[in-house]
Structures are given as structure tokens and as C-alpha cells.
């Protein structure tokens, strides 16, 4: 199997789906002539032309809404947000139009589209450019939320998201674009709602998604040296959520740590902890702990940023606490 980057995997998925289905088009800032701010759409303009790979003005609310309108009449838009931070300007169209259209119309009009781009922090981009906004998307029924962590998942999940008949927020990571991994060529589609046990342990469950999967694996490595084996469960999609996989892991380990890049208050980990204590109360030998970003806007200074982000050490410490070590 060829080893390619997460960026190339996304590019493959886009090219293959656009090849497969004429109704798929890509629109966003810098996606065409510039090959995308992060080069995800490299070469697509040349391959598909400027009606299917479209540079937009800096009008997030406008072009996100344009995508929803095009989806209302049967196209399958892929709308790229240069980063999800900027999608905050477009949330009205995501929440009030895309997520509610099918319901408000009594099932007449579905919205088969994808909103994609990087979420979360990169390096020293400070408060306005370093936000993991999963909570805002996953809170509202009507949208699906997908967060691939590896090149293979990026390709398989993007293909599934583009083929899905509902709006999907597909959240990538700037720091993930360069990671490499084996990716099947051609038809490689990963159904939404299937978590992936990225590491099999048995002593404690680390439940996470997206970029944080790699941090969890690092923490699991450290724990292993100290004699504790951790399950690292990569949710892959937050909605649909593979609740069975979460419950299965915690029933096995009886201990859970939720790791996410974003803020704690009503974060994704809050939902999972609340769900698990409700559905597996008697299986828990310790409280569920959460590791998140510090509850502050992201600072610029290198040392403060490092402190603000979740660290492998914090994950290790949390795991030890639930292991009472």
C-alpha cells in the first residue's frame, strides 16, 4: 500500500469523488489557483476546471450559504473553510439552514454537503486562530461531525462524507496535513459511526478523536513502560458516535480518560463522560477524568501555548489517577 500524507489522502478523496460524481464541486478561499491555503486541493483546478474548483471571496457566511442553496437543488458541494475558526461567521447558515432544512421542509429537501477545513491549534497562532470548535457543531442535531486522525481515515472518511446525504462538518488538523501513512488506492470508504481501536490495552481506556489520537498513543507508550496498557479509542466521527465501542472498552477496563483538544465546559468529553456514567455506572471503578485545553483563549507565547495545550504527561497523570497509582 502506498504511503502518502494526510494532505495527499484528502486530495485523493476529493479527486476521486469529483471524478465519480459531476455534482460534487469544491468552493472556498484560495482553493483553486493557489491550490488551497494548505495545498489540499493541489492540481484540482487543472483537472476539473474553474466551475468545479472555485476561489471564493472572503465571505464565509455568503459562500457557506451558497453551498447550502446549491445542495437544496441537488448538487453536492464541498465548502472549504480556510480554518474552522472562520466558520464562526457562517454558523447561521450551518445551523439555521443546513442542519434544519430537511426537518423544516418535512423531509422534502435534504442537504448533501460537506463543510471541511482544519480545526484546533497549530503553532503560536494565538487566540483567534487556535480553536477546536467541535462542540459547536456536534451540539446541534441535523449535522454530522467527522474528525479523521490518520491519512487512511482522512481518505476513507472524506469519501464517505461526500457520499453522505446530510450535511457533514469534516474537521481536519493543520498539524496533521504532513503526517504520513499507508492509504489504500481507489475505492476506500470508511463508514461514519465506526470508532477505531488504535491501540489495544486493557487497563484503562483513553477515548479521543482527531489530532489528539497521536498524543494519546504517545501517552499510552509512556504508560506501557510503567506497566499499564491503555486502550486508545479513536472515535473518528463524533456524530454518529460509536457509543458501543466506547462502552465496550470501558466495560473491559473500568476506567476512562477523555482527551480532546478543545475547551472543557460542555466539551465532547463532557458528553462522553455523562453518557458513560449513565450507561455503565456499575462498570466504573474510578471517576472518568478529562484532559482538555486549559480553559483560556490560546496565548501566543511559546511557553504559555505549550502549557495551554493538552500534553502526553497530563494524559499519563490522568490515567494513573483513575488507576489509583
Amino acid at each position, binding site marked *: 500500500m502506498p504511503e502518502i500524507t494526510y494532505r495527499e489522502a484528502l486530495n485523493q478523496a476529493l479527486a476521486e469523488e469529483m471524478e465519480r460524481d459531476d455534482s460534487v464541486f469544491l468552493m472556498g478561499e484560495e482553493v483553486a489557483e493557489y491550490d488551497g491555503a494548505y495545498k489540499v486541493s493541489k492540481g484540482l483546478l487543472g483537472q476539473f476546471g474553474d466551475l468545479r474548483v472555485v476561489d471564493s471571496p472572503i465571505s464565509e457566511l455568503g459562500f457557506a450559504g451558497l453551498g447550502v442553496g446549491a445542495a437544496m437543488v441537488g448538487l453536492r458541494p464541498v465548502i472549504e473553510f480556510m480554518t474552522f475558526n472562520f466558520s464562526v461567521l457562517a454558523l*447561521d447558515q450551518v445551523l439555521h439552514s443546513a442542519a434544519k432544512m430537511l426537518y423544516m421542509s418535512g423531509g422534502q429537501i435534504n442537504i448533501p454537503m460537506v463543510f471541511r477545513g482544519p480545526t484546533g491549534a497549530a503553532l503560536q497562532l494565538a487566540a483567534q486562530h487556535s480553536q477546536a470548535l467541535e462542540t459547536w457543531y456536534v451540539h446541534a442535531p441535523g449535522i454530522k461531525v467527522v474528525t479523521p486522525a490518520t491519512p487512511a481515515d482522512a481518505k476513507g472518511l472524506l469519501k464517505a462524507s461526500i457520499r453522505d446525504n446530510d450535511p457533514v462538518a469534516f474537521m481536519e488538523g493543520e498539524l496533521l496535513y504532513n503526517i504520513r501513512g499507508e492509504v489504500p488506492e481507489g475505492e476506500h470508504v470508511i463508514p461514519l459511526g465506526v470508532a477505531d481501536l488504535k491501540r489495544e490495552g486493557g487497563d484503562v481506556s483513553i477515548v479521543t478523536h482527531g489530532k489528539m489520537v497521536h498524543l494519546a498513543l504517545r501517552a499510552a507508550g509512556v504508560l506501557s513502560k510503567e506497566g499499564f496498557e491503555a486502550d486508545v479509542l479513536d472515535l473518528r466521527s463524533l456524530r454518529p458516535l460509536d457509543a458501543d465501542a466506547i462502552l465496550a472498552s470501558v466495560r473491559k477496563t473500568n476506567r476512562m480518560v477523555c482527551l480532546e483538544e478543545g475547551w472543557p465546559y460542555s466539551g465532547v468529553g463532557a458528553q462522553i463522560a455523562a453518557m458513560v456514567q449513565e450507561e455503565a455506572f456499575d462498570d466504573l471503578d474510578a471517576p472518568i477524568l478529562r484532559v482538555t485545553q486549559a480553559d483560556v483563549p490560546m496565548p501566543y507565547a511559546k511557553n504559555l501555548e505549550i502549557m495551554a495545550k493538552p500534553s502526553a504527561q497530563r494524559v499519563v497523570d490522568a490515567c494513573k489517577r483513575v488507576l489509583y497509582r
Partner: protein
Amino acid sequence: MESGTVAFSVDRDPLFGFSREDLLGILRRMLLYRRFEEKVEESYAIGKIGGFCHLHIGQEGAAEGCIGPLRADDYVISAYREHTQALAKGMDPKAVMAELYGRTGGASGGKGGSMHIFGADQSFMGGHGIVGGQVPLATGMGWAIKYRGEDRVTVCFMGDAAVNQGALHESLNMAAVWQLPVIYVVENNGYGMGTAFSRISATEIGDRSKAYGIPASVVNGQDVLATYRHFEGLVGEVRSGGGPHFAEVRTYRFRGHSMSDPVSGTYRSKEEVEERTEQDDPITILVHRLFQAEALTQEDLEAMDGEVRAQVADAVAFADEAPLPEASELYKHVYSQINEHGRLFFDGRDR
């Protein structure tokens, strides 16, 4: 249609060259819109209809005049004051009334209500509740038409107060850059709720599109025939590749902003409303023209009105007898595709 051209009914022929048959068709539909919403008022008063309900009474000329010239497959999208536009686009009064009643058989299955009437089969792409929210959607439909190389047209209705939403401007810019076949129609009834347009804007409606080089025009919506002819022209030009257009239709709201708001009050006087209702009723104006041209007699009118009232009564009866939605509807249509794997609903309730 040149930018700024004003097309008031200064036409020599007061009937604008319409055939008697066409004229009577227009009148009949205008009467339908009026009688339909008069019934809506009654049904709301006795609690059969709930929520926010915005009547179009007084503005029917805009619905008939702008939508009449369209093809069945042209798209129309609007805000929350859309009952008569839905009817004008060919939706069944039964389905619209049942939707207002929140019943099975309603256009949106009872899930949308007054603000969210959808008729996909009639290419009526909905009533939308966020002021300005429908404008980027219309732009996307225009994009889809261009993308597919079709010759359809999209008509997007909005109110005068909606022109201060950034969404309009982002949309106009994109429509201009990509030359999309969209007619943005501002139904200028002078007020956004209780705010006169002049209090929250330093310029005229039509000035908005100047920033993008999109031609603008103004027409008197109380003159349905003038409006109809004006839009025949616009639709033709846009359909043949003329690019977007920004059309102001001057009109007046005879009722309160919504059923829960007073007809007049601090923001407009009782006298103003009475005068406009007296002098500017699009139906009265049309009827008088037809009388003068002896194209219509009092008897014809009463007969027609009777038929229309019967049609509306049928719609009410249909809505009244229609059952409430099944409980099973609650979780239907949240997603069109229930994925094989994973959990989509998190309320822990039985479905």
C-alpha cells in the same frame, strides 16, 4: 432593464395589453391570496394556527406580479411572509393551510408552520425565518443553474429591512462576479417591524446594488399589471444570460407585522394605514380598471369571489380534518440518512 429605471403604471393602456382571460386569471389569484389570508386570520384568532404568523395582505401584487411571469421550474425562495408567494408558485391551498394548522398533509408535514412553507415539486424553496438567511441560499440556487447550464431563473424575496444584513452584500458580490441568474426582490413595505426604513438607512433600497454594478429597478407593487409586465422583462433578460438584477417592489403592509403585533401604533398612525388601505389596495385598483374597461361586471366579481371563498373553505375543511402528525414524526427528517453504525440521537429517549 436599465439600472434605476422606474416602471410605475404610467403605461398608456391601463390593462397593459393583457387578454381578458389573463386579466381574470390574475384577479382570481389575487382574490385567492386575499381570502386565504383572511381565513388564516380567523383561524389564528380561534387558536387553530399558532406561532409567528405574518400576513401578506396588501402586498399580493408583489406575489402575483413577480411570480406570474415565471416558469414552473424556476426557483422561488422567500422569508417568513410567504403564504401568498407559495400559492402564486402553484402550491395547493389545502397543503399550505394544513401546514399552518400543523397537520399531516401540510406542505412541510406540519413541522414547518407559517414561516417554513416548502414546495419542492413547485420549486418553491421555502419560507425562511432568519432575516436575510434566504439570500445566500438563492445565490446558491443561481450557482446551481449556472453549474448545470440550465436556463432557469431564481427569484429571491426579502423585506426592506433585510438589505442591512451582510449576507445580502456577500451574495450580491458573488452573483455579480459569477453573473448568476438571480432576481433579488425587495418587497419594500416601508417598515421592518416597527422601524421605518429611512430610520436605519441613509440611502434608498436601489442604491445597495450599485456597489456591485448590478442593475436595479423600482416598480409599484400595488399595480399588479405593471409589476407583472416589469418582471416579464426582467425574467427574460436574466434567463437569456443578463446576469443578476436587484428589483425593488414598492408596497404596503395592511396588517400588523405579525398576528401578535398591532396594525398601527407608535411607528405608523392609524390614519396612515387607513389611507393606504383605502387608496392602495392592489385588488381594488385592479378591479376598478377592469370595471372601467368593462372587462368585468359586479356579477362576475361576486361569482368569482364566491368560487374563491369556496376554494378557501375547502382548504380550511381539509386542514381542520387532517390529523395531527404521528408521534413517530418527531425523529423523522432530522437526518435523511441514518448511518448503519453509531448513535445519532443523544436524548436517551425511545424512538
